[in-house]
């Protein structure tokens, strides 16, 4: 589909948000900060996949978003369990 | 997993029916078609999953499945949406203020909700409301990270201002 100006602006803002989260992922400073950044990034990616589905006009990407969201949640819980184990 | 004598966690036939309807609705939403073949397949899968998982899945037994639960549920949803938007405006204000107005601390609040489901919904609601993040649930107490704690706060004050407004509605549809 052809994009309107507002949509291009919205996509650019979303891109900046991804870059900022990546910056936190790189800066750290500690592992937990990176985990939080990765968690946030995965949610942004999930909504990004929904936007991508609309851009390409293909509902197939909605299924990808659904599975991606589910798996990233499981991943976050697994990492959280690992952090917990290190402390006690 | 559950003992037949424990009424609080055992649930009733109604909870089994609820689980079946929930799974069937999920199937309908995911397939997005009302084709008879899809409906039959969905009903069979939902029934099979319900029969297999119901004896081990106790989370939904916290639900009150009575007609009088509908009104509190709807008013809770409304309150939740308003609080979610308020939380974001509040967070936006903090993030955009150059001096970062923060006075964070961990506080503990008490909850009157007994069931794990009730505490789960309450904890999630608190996480998505202005300035609060549920960190841990210890029995009937919730440990909460609060970005701006008013000075001179007692457990009772904190309970009233954080959980009070949600609990009032939640009590209507979860135990």
């Amino acid at each position, binding site marked *: 589909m052809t994009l309107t100006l507002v949509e291009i602006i919205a996509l650019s803002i979303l891109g900046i948000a991804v870059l900022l989260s990546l910056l936190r992922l790189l800066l750290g400073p500690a592992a937990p900060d990176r985990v939080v950044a990765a968690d946030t990034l995965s949610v942004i990616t999930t909504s990004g996949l929904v936007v991508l589905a609309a851009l390409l006009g293909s509902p197939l990407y909605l299924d990808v978003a659904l599975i991606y969201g589910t798996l990233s*949640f499981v991943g976050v819980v697994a990492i959280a369990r690992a952090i*917990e184990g290190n402390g006690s | 997993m559950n003992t037949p004598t424990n009424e609080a966690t055992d649930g009733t036939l109604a909870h089994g029916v609820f689980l079946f309807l929930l799974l069937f609705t999920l199937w309908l939403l995911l397939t997005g078609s009302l084709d008879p073949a899809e409906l039959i397949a969905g009903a069979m899968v939902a029934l099979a999953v319900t029969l297999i998982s119901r004896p081990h899945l106790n989370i939904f037994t916290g639900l009150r499945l009575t007609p009088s639960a509908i009104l509190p549920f709807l008013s809770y949803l409304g309150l939740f949406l308003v609080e979610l938007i308020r939380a974001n405006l509040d967070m936006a204000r903090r993030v955009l203020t150059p001096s970062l107005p923060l006075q964070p601390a961990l506080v503990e609040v008490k909850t009157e909700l007994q069931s794990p489901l009730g505490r789960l919904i309450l904890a999630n609601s608190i996480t998505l409301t202005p300035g609060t993040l549920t960190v841990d649930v210890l029995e009937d107490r919730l440990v909460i990270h609060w970005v701006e704690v008013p000075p001179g706060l007692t457990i009772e004050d904190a309970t009233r201002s954080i959980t009070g407004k949600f609990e009032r509605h939640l009590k209507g549809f979860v135990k």
Partner: protein
Amino acid sequence: MRLLADIVLLVGAVFTLLGALGLLRMPDVYNRIQAGTKAVTLGALSLILGIGLLYPQWWSKLLVIALLILVTNPLGSSTIARALLIAGVKPWTKTPTTAVKERES
């Protein structure tokens, strides 16, 4: 309809950006979780609503994705926060608190 969808999409993108900005600016990991979770959840919901307005025929799957994010995102954040507290990460604070001490004992 297109204009309304665009505005909702723009709001969603702005909230997502604010969440990422909070992630960058906040002084400690607990506050970062707060900023990240809240703003990004509402941002994602707005983006999904906007797409729903553009493609009404996708409503059922979009609803499932929205519910998934609404349930799992705060839950995941709480799980991380709890793990950090158990692992002994102290929250950045101006006054000492009782809850941390209790957890340690």
